[in-house]
């Protein structure tokens, strides 16, 4: 508080005259700490700097934190900006500028922990700084590491705040801090109660830190703010261990200890009356050990009865660090409400993630669904078309540095490239294999191997960057719990657009009519003047083209490698098969089911994502047993194999 007043004093105008070397002198006293600061020990230096009241201090702290302070060969500290081999240096006190060769100068790099401590020290200078960026960083520093001493200056600065956003932030921060640090319990409880609606991580952090507890054990329950009493019957050995740690009970004699005790007491090929050769069972060892204990050579065994008696003689409890039961009760109530809300929001967030995953699966699979459904052709190279699309995006970004423009170019280009590849493949290979579906599978697999290796030869095995435009960075934050990145929303929108587009093509265009006719009865369609050959070619091109676009989308949110197609191919087949072949709605249903199922299993077992994938595949195998034709079954050529 005193410090704060001092600071406000000179911010408010009474600036002392700058004198050469003042700050440098202080820095030199702590030279080692300035050059190699550590979070734990930097406090003394910061205190000295702040209490010195020098006006250069805030500038120095900011520059120091930004890694702009260098140490000259003779140990002086300067601000410096490197420029090739020279260094443009500025005196920390006078601001005199000079250019010197870089040799011998060392850049000082305070680590993240130190920078945070510096940020805390800067708070008092920045809270009422005219620059809103500095005020913002002060608020961030406070919210990262709230300290009781900051509450008063923060409250004082709220009134003078002009920026409405910052003002709201300050007010919220005041609530958070009053809940923990306000002087009277009444103020604190009022602040706590107002947090019951707030699901932000900070609010929960405040409540949880008020409710922090410590475990204890004693022969009688002490007179304190007890959180709960624990029954040791659940894990008697662990609780006995605690008694031992507290020095309230003798330690358990472990099997290893028994063994080494026996080893030390062997005499004449026997120990405790038992020949050593017979000591290969636990029972025999216990018997021998008990004999030794009876002879007073070793401490006695702790039996189960001993353990239970010791546990019964003590009480285990958790005690709040906060002394006032009214405060903890209010916080516990508020937290219960918040937790309830958070779990709802978590469910909603999981739903969003599942929806996003489903849209990715849908995009990856829809092209396959078209070719598989309409033509009955399995295209194992579908994954490689996805990869081709992604690499197209990467190549476009090499030539078009503007990310927004490059994505706008890449999407149709990826479609064109993979459309061309699909049509070529259909003309050269698949056309000849229409009556041999198993062989199409193998031939397209051959193409898939070749394409994958070709991509490796051209682009190398390392992942290539495909960067999304700046306006897709970040996330849509509904609350601290529910949020989803913009890129995933974009993919979702893209998936919806393709759903609409494909439905439109199939239901509202001449091509769609012909496609549906060929799907249902190719012979009849041909006799009605439709050229099935052309339809097949276009359908295949369309399916492949969509895979290319999916590739750009997947590359944007994950990675571009030559093996990315292989990651999606089995999932895509599952999606198509589960959904039902040859039906857009079926694919949608399949993708949704797989996406939600995978997230659901992940939620049940959050520490092992791999297991989720295994169980999902098992589930799909079983599902197909019971609905071999998928969720939405279809009649026609595809249905007849």
């Amino acid at each position: 508080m005193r410090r704060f007043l001092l600071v406000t004093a000179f911010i408010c105008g009474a600036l002392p005259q700058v004198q050469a070397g003042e700050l440098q002198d202080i820095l030199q006293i702590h030279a080692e700490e300035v050059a190699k600061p550590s979070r734990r020990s930097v406090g003394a230096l910061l205190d000295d700097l702040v209490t010195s009241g020098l006006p250069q201090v805030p500038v120095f702290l900011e520059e120091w934190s930004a890694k702009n302070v260098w140490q000259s060969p003779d140990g002086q500290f300067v601000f410096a900006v490197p420029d090739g081999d020279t260094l443009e240096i500025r005196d920390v006190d006078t601001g005199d500028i000079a250019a010197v060769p870089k040799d011998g100068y060392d850049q000082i790099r305070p680590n993240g922990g130190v920078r945070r401590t510096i940020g805390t020290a800067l708070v008092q200078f920045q809270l009422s700084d005219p620059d809103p960026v500095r005020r913002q960083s002060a608020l961030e520093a406070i919210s990262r590491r709230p300290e009781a001493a900051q509450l008063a200056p923060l409250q004082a600065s709220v009134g003078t705040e002009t920026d409405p956003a910052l003002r709201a932030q300050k007010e919220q921060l005041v609530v958070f801090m009053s809940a923990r640090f306000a002087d009277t319990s009444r103020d604190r409880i009022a602040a706590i109660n107002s947090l019951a609606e707030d699901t932000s991580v900070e609010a929960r952090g405040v409540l949880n830190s008020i409710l922090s507890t410590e475990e204890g054990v004693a022969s009688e329950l002490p007179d304190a703010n007890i959180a709960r009493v624990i029954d040791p019957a659940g894990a008697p050995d662990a609780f006995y261990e605690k008694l031992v740690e507290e020095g309230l009970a003798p330690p358990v004699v472990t099997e290893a200890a028994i063994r080494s005790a026996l080893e030390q007491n062997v005499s004449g090929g026997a120990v405790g009356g038992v020949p050593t050769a017979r000591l290969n069972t636990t029972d025999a060892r216990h018997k021998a050990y008990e004999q030794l204990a009876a002879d007073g050579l070793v401490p006695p065994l702790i039996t189960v009865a001993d353990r239970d008696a010791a546990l019964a003689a003590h009480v285990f409890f958790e005690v709040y660090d906060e002394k006032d039961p009214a405060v903890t009760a209010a916080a516990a109530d508020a937290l219960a409400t918040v937790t309830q809300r958070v779990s709802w929001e978590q469910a909603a967030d999981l739903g969003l993630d599942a929806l996003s995953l489903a849209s990715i699966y849908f995009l990856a699979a829809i092209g396959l669904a078209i070719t598989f459904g309409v033509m009955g052709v399995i295209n194992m190279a579908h994954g490689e078309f996805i990869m081709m699309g992604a690499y197209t995006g990467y190549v476009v970004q090499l030539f078009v540095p503007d990310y927004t423009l490059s994505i706008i170019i890449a999407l149709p280009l990826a479609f064109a490239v993979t459309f061309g590849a699909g049509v070529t493949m259909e003309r050269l290979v698949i056309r000849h294999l229409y009556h041999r579906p198993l062989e199409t599978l193998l031939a397209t697999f051959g193409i898939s191997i070749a394409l994958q290796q070709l991509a490796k030869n051209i682009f190398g095995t390392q992942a290539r960057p495909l960067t999304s435009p700046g306006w897709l960075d970040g996330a849509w934050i509904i609350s601290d719990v529910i949020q989803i990145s913009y890129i995933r929303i974009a993919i979702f929108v893209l998936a919806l657009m393709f759903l609409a587009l494909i439905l439109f093509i199939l239901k509202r265009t001449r091509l769609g009519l012909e496609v549906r006719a060929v799907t249902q009865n190719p012979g009849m369609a041909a006799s009605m003047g439709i050229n099935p050959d052309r339809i097949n070619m276009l359908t295949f091109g369309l399916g492949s083209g969509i895979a290319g676009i999916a590739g750009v989308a997947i590359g944007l949110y994950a990675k571009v490698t030559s093996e990315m197609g292989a990651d999606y191919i089995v999932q895509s087949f599952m999606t198509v098969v589960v959904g039902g072949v040859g039906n857009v709605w079926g694919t949608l249903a399949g993708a949704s089911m797989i996406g939600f199922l995978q997230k659901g299993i992940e939620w049940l077992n959050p520490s092992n994502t791999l297991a989720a994938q295994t169980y999902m595949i098992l589930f799909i195998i079983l599902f197909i047993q019971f609905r071999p034709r998928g969720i939405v079954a279809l009649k026609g050529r595809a249905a007849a194999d």
Partner: protein
Amino acid sequence: MRKTFIAENPSVLWFLAALGLFTLVVTVLSEWVGTGLIPTSFVKTLGKTLCLCLIAIAMDVVWGYCGILSLGHFAFFGIGGYAIGMWLMYARTESIVLESFGSQVIPPTQQEISDAIGNQIFGVVGSSEFPAIWAFADNLYLQLLMIVLVPGLLALVFGWLAFRSRVTGVYLSILTQAMTLALSLYLFQNDSGLRGNNGLSGLQNIPGFETAPQSAVSLVFFWASAFALAAGYVFFAWAVSGKMGSVIKGIRDNEARVRFLGYRVESYKLFIFTVTAVVSGIAGALYYPQAGIINPGEIAPIASIYLAVWVAIGGRGRLYGAVIGAAFVSLLSSWFTGGGAPAINLGFYTIQWTDWWLVLLGLSFVAVTLFFPKGIGGLFDYLVRKP
């Protein structure tokens, strides 16, 4: 019966003769009993190739004869490898542990021995307790039984479910592929109890024969593989000749018609699927002690697809075609990827075969499917018919 079988299948005799001669030549040139012209590492490669030929025959029977394109037979191969690998690791570790306990005054308890073995085997992957699936690992005979039982049962249950609900054609292929993927993902987990990504290693050291040199071990396994291949060949040649052979070929060509004729198509398919799975398991159990290590990567879906590639290139519907395909493609593959093939300099670009081999394989595979559906084996028809 036997006479007519051989008479009807002269290729069996030819095959056995060729295999016998090959085995003899390798033995004579090996390091252990012969001149040492063939290094031990190559004897191991040849022995492994014979195991691959065995599973290729199984694949040919299930696909080329019965028309089921299974993309999951390498899973059974891997299970066989894991089954024998568990015993090999356990027994080897047990002897090490017992030796280290031997010098101590107090003999170890059963619990201590098992803890120490568990710690040795699983300490590497960050745990120390024996998972339930290792319950029989201490018993060679039970574990040998597992080689047959586990792939057989898995194939039986899976096949029963699939064939019962009339899943056929590409659906079945994808389903078998999913099964393989699920198995390999499961094994990739450390929690599966089979050491996750590390798999089981040091399998070339045979417990009880620690002092035997690898040149001897490799040759013995080579003989065993050759014998298994011979036995497998004769068995499958017998199985696909005669009435059953006709039925399963009928199923391949027109399943509905065979069903109308009153045959229980599902039972035939299930029988073939299960028997070939068992043979694959045996092939795997012989393969992995020669490879020295088995890990889930071996079971990845791609391996089973390569198996189909071998059979297709060798020629479907003829057993020797499968053998030729597996031997030819896998040896060629290791020659190319091992840097054996000379680089081709085109002036502006040099073709390195380590990079381009897979492109070549993929494209030649397309070519075989399109233009030579009979594969390399088809050349024999050409030779036989010409005079």
